[in-house]
């Protein structure tokens, strides 16, 4: 934070809480005050049961929602409005369905004032990097789920953001495609090591990708209940790393923390339903 402690973290949440007014005017506190630092060049994953408010926290880091209390700073500067230094990969389809793959990627450069011709050239190069060069002229509906994610990834990365925010981006994909996309992400990340904040409910995915895995409690008034350093060597292969003895140990430890929260989340969901 301060100059003497070295570089400010890419994302820093201080006492951030998120609360909503629900229908009858009551206050629903989704996330109680939490602190979180994502240092530059590091890959942090947050895992938690469904509905624990992990996406909400990510949206606060993105500037899409304002926290109810606390502050968000980006490289030491307080965040006001949308986080311009971050790219966001959404869980659901965020591509513009009326634009071809290449136009979807090229349009991301328009706010930066890049000329159309140059934008298209760079978009083409970017599509090539994600392995979709031959699909440039297809519309999103002509692409598979994995291909759409690649386009979305290209759209996010072409702006070269210093921070990547990812909200269960591979959630809707099938198991094989997730492995391929995970490896692609790690490969791209290795070249320029952006700060990544990755939200998932899949513990295997979190351990395989991240440097650090944070476990979130079941909501409401969710908070962090565990913080684990993942010391698996890089480069990693998502499919291979799962057979590593160290992976197994980490998984067991983190799961012990996560399991209680998952059962609490289910118990609460049942309570609501009853």
């Amino acid at each position, binding site marked *: 934070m301060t100059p003497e402690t070295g570089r400010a973290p890419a994302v820093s949440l201080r006492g951030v809480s998120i609360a909503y007014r629900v229908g009858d005017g009551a206050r629903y506190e989704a996330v109680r005050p939490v602190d979180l630092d994502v240092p530059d060049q590091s890959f942090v994953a947050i895992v938690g049961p469904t509905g624990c408010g992990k996406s909400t926290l990510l949206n606060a880091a*993105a500037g*899409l929602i304002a926290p109810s209390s606390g502050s968000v700073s980006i490289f030491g500067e307080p965040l006001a409005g*949308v*986080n*311009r230094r*971050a*790219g*966001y990969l*959404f869980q*659901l*389809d*965020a*591509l*513009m*369905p*009326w*634009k*071809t793959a290449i136009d979807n990627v090229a*349009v*991301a450069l*328009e*706010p*930066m004032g890049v000329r159309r011709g140059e934008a298209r050239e760079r978009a083409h190069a970017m599509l090539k990097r994600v392995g979709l060069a031959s699909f440039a002229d297809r*519309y*999103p*509906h*002509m692409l598979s789920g994995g291909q759409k994610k690649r386009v979305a990834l290209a*759209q996010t990365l072409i*702006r070269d953001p210093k921070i990547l925010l990812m909200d269960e981006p591979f959630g809707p994909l099938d198991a094989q495609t997730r492995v391929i996309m995970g490896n692609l992400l790690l490969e791209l990340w290795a070249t320029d090591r952006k700060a990544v904040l990755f939200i998932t409910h899949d513990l295997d995915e979190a351990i395989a990708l991240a440097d650090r895995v944070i476990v979130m409690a079941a909501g409401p008034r969710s908070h962090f209940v565990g913080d684990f350093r993942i010391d698996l060597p890089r480069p990693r292969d998502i499919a291979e790393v799962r057979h590593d003895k160290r992976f197994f140990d980490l998984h067991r430890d983190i799961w012990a923390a996560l399991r209680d929260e998952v059962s609490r989340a289910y118990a609460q969901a049942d309570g609501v339903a009853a």
Partner: protein
Amino acid sequence: MKPSRALVLALQILFGVALLVAWHFAANIRVGSATLKFFLSAPLDVFWRVVKLFSEGEIWGHMWITFQETVYAFVLGSVAGVLCGFALARNPLAAAVADPYLKAANALPRVVLAPIFMLWLGLGVWSKVALGFSLVFFIVFFNVFQGVREVPATILANARMLGFNERQLFRHVYWPAALTWMFSSLHTSVGFALVGAVVGEYLGSAAGLGYLIHQAEGVLDTTGVFAGMAILTAFVLIIDALVTVIERRLLVWQPQGAQTTT
């Protein structure tokens, strides 16, 4: 099992022929010293009347008038509908204020406005355009209004994260979304533009297909009425086919509009 195309086509032709034959015999039933032709006309008479109308060339002028009225009503109604739909979708206060008035205006059967439009705009083309406009406008308006308000939240959030300003948001997100909804109502709105034109002509005019049918009715010329109806039907089908072609080209990015290639 799905019936084969050849079978369907054969049965369709057979059905049509059966109808015409039934019509032919019904028309020739004798009642006293006359036949029922006075009431029913007859398929062959109608056919020859159509041929005569085209060979004498008078019909082209009427078709051109109706076509013009349809196009004007469609274009003006669509432009106004898109603009208003857009403006109100982006301005919740204005939308809330306008809501009861729009609902009331749309609830009114537009045909009753035809005499008013004639009073204001005369018996020429523009009173028909106004009637068509009053029909097209609301269809396009409601579609665009809905379309702009229902742009998926994820696409909007993504656009914000990409750093789009208001102008870019309009150009790349809202505008294409609005157009999509306008095009999805294209068939309906073109159809209503035509209804406005023909009904307007029918109620008072000096030219057009609706006028032609009305004239024939005035002199109890059933053959003329049926000939006019046949031409009008063909006219509508051709315009509808044109709309389909345009739609295919414009909505190429939509799943049903395009064939995937490998």
